[in-house]
């Protein structure tokens, strides 16, 4: 079986996988990082969204072997100890989650939006979420949370961290 070496949440890992093993399976099954969820089989729901080299990727659309040598960040890699990432904190503050299942993907996707378009307005946030399904919240509070989370990420910049570096790239 192929052996892949990559960095996950800042740690170097290696794993033996089948050629058909998906990145999400590597994360969940080989590495026990079960915060990344699987909600569909057609790459529609976005519950499996992680960052690969700092960009949001649906980890059900990528083979594990394709992630060789890359830096992957999962939802487990965001918080600094007990201190939540500003986007996580915004979801909590604005009740942007109910059952919590789509939440990791939403948060990972939202952080990538902050980097793509830190000026995003409500319409742009809603368009960005085209690839993330939520069945609980009606998106209302997710949109509020993301708008606030982006602001908070930018607001952290003067404290010596840019929005970019407060993200998750390698």
């Amino acid at each position, binding site marked *: 079986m192929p052996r892949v070496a990559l960095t996950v949440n800042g740690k170097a890992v290696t794993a033996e996988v089948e050629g058909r093993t998906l990145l999400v399976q590597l994360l969940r099954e080989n590495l026990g990082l079960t915060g990344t*969820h699987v909600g569909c*089989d057609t790459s529609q729901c976005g519950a499996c969204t992680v960052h690969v080299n700092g960009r949001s990727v649906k980890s059900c659309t990528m083979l594990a072997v394709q992630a060789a040598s890359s830096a992957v960040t999962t939802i487990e890699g965001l918080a600094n100890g007990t201190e*939540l990432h500003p986007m996580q904190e915004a979801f*909590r503050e604005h*009740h942007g989650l109910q059952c919590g299942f789509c*939440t990791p993907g939403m948060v990972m996707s939202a952080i990538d939006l902050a980097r793509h378009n830190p000026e995003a307005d409500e319409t742009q946030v809603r368009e960005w979420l085209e690839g993330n399904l939520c069945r*609980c919240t009606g998106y209302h509070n997710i949109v509020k949370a993301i708008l606030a989370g982006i602001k908070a990420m930018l607001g952290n910049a003067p404290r010596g961290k840019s929005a970019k570096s407060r993200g998750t790239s390698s």
Partner: protein
Amino acid sequence: MTHQPNPTGIGAALKRKEDPRFLRGKGRYTDDINLPGQSYAYFLRSAYAHARIKKIDTRAAKKARGVVAVYTSADTAKLGGLPCGWLIHSKDGSPMKEGKHPVLAEGKVRHVGDPVAVIIAETLAQARDAAELVEIDFAELPAVVDMAKAQNKGAAAVHDVAPDNVCYDWELGDKAAVDAAFATAAHVTRLELTNNRLAANPIEPRAAIGDYSSATGEHTLYTTSQNPHVIRLLMGAFVLQIPEHKIRVIAPDVGGGFGSKIYHYAEEALVTWAAAQLERPVKWTSDRSEAFLSDAQGRDHKTVVELALDKDGKFLALRESTLANMGAYLSTFASVIPTWLHGTLLAGQYTTPAIYCNVKAIYTSTVAVDAYRGAGRPEATFLLERVIDLAALETGRDPVELRRLNFIQPHQFPYQTPVALVYDSGNYQATMDQALKAADYAGFEKRRQAAKARGKLRGIGVASYIEACGIAPSNVAGALGARAGLYEAATVRVNPTGSVSVMTGSHSHGQGHETTFAQVVSDKLGIAFDQVEIVHGDTAKIPFGMGTYGSRSIAVGGSAIVKAMDKIIAKGKKIAAHMLEAAEGDMTFENGAFKVAGTDRQKSFGEVAFSAYVPHKYPLDTVEPGLEETAFYDPKNFTFPAGTYICEVEIDPDTGAVEIVAFHAADDFGNIINPMIVEGQVHGGLAQGIGQALFEHCVYDDAGQLVSGSFMDYCMPRADNLPSFNVATSVTVCTHNPLGVKGCGEAGAIGSPPAVINAIVNALKDYGVTHIEMPATPQKIWRAIRSAKKK
């Protein structure tokens, strides 16, 4: 409750206790659990909607790499069928016709997705690979898809016990009175409509892990359930014949349910059974395509509704005739959804004096249909609020004024409807006024004209809903055919240092019970919110439970917790009286302290708790040590949340595309524990209701294939399909439960579909359009506009 405002008590918009673990990826959902020695199950499902199984050959699959076992009905036929929990009688008095629902198909398959075999292997990939090697010889039979044709002579029968595919033919109401009223009516409005079939689609697919200990003979099932005790009862007593004390069912974090995770499913029983056969854990996780073919679906009614009005617009009578799709098997609560949870809601918010409802439940070669958020009540609300709007259109009345004219007035409560229910409280004018004001209803015409100038058709739609929640008084339910009680249980355990653990039979799968229930406890016992732990979802930890559905958790589960706390306080008074050398009758409890009335002598809750566990100065002759109480609460009546929703749309006449430009909800949920969470529940319900109105549809072709069987084809509402919502509440208190609460989980999904469709029809009024079927896709609207132009 306590007299001083409690910052963590009832009414506070506290942030949720659940959130940090979910936000950090530390939730523990069923598929996140892996047990040592675990094997993986893959279900081989029928690709035919209706076929005889002539032969199954599993020899090659059994020899495949990694395969542990392959089971078919030859192995499982001795197991019981999956039971239906509610017996409905037809109008002729005969019981509904129940065909067996085997865990693996016996002799024939009845829908695409019906499980035929289960392959268990060391890895899921190996199980899937081996499934390819199972040879099944099917003889295809005609599929039964259309409910009307299903009853025709010569149509194939899904079950031998129901040769005409009619499961039951049920009625409610005074038919003669209704017929008489129609005969004298000044105006009769008639509408044929479809309530489209939906897939619940919680984002977490179902999963189940069976485990067995040969040392203790104990079976453990981890499952994505809204009601683990119900699963234990149904699976143990009916399917596997294992006594309850040998079964533990754990429903850990569950990623949404919306009804679809109430039911006992074959996969749960199979993994539990197989784990005992193999003496190793067996895990199954559904994928989304499988969910479309195996999770119970919702709605699917074909209805004719007629409303009789007098010359002033007063409703005289309502008549409904509906075909309700059961799918191929009777799911756990399937039979009660289009009957007692539907026909009883036909009075809505109105004084209609005579109502008659006839529902025929039909078996078809499709996935089972059961409760989906709202469950029977959205169907009732949709037909009622549509026919009222159409009556307003036909008689030249304003739809708001027609509703107002017929509203039950605040002084009329308690109000006995002609369809069995007694509404305890409500103020329908108030929620209507609130919604109209929020929506600037009076200013709509200006907005319509402005839209017209931009080439858009603007419409406004109003819908006033009622629902019966807090299910249900057990004696009433029993008289109506329930095969279970519908109380809720709770244990309140006060720990020696004064913290509190609450074991509740309600189950949270997104509702935030760990927060709201803790607020109730904090409020009632006057202790800190962070000193309260809510435990749910494990039959080994919780005394009993009927679970979460029908917006019942706070009204029934919350009331059970209050009842248990009442017992705690009563016992605490005895202990405190002894400690303070006062008479028990002089003791009061408020703001977290036991006090001697009229004095400043008091003992704190913590001191009393400690004394209960360290009973040195304690009334041991009359009071047991310890401070833990269990209560079962059986509701006295349903609760009746109600409200008015207003939707405003703009339609592009060239494409038929609909944009919801504003949505206003005004709800009365009784007292509210956590307004932030209640708003979130409404938002989610609205999205599902709007999804039904505009996007979602389980489409079966004539061969019984589900055409919209993936997220590529089934249109789930996405963020850019929806607006931000404007939600507000007003309060009339529920009169018969201790919290005065009514429940809020389903309202959004109940009230919104007719509001949306009424708005669309209103936008299209110049084209003479009187109805649009759901989902109101751009194609349907474009065709309606186009055919109107041709006329």
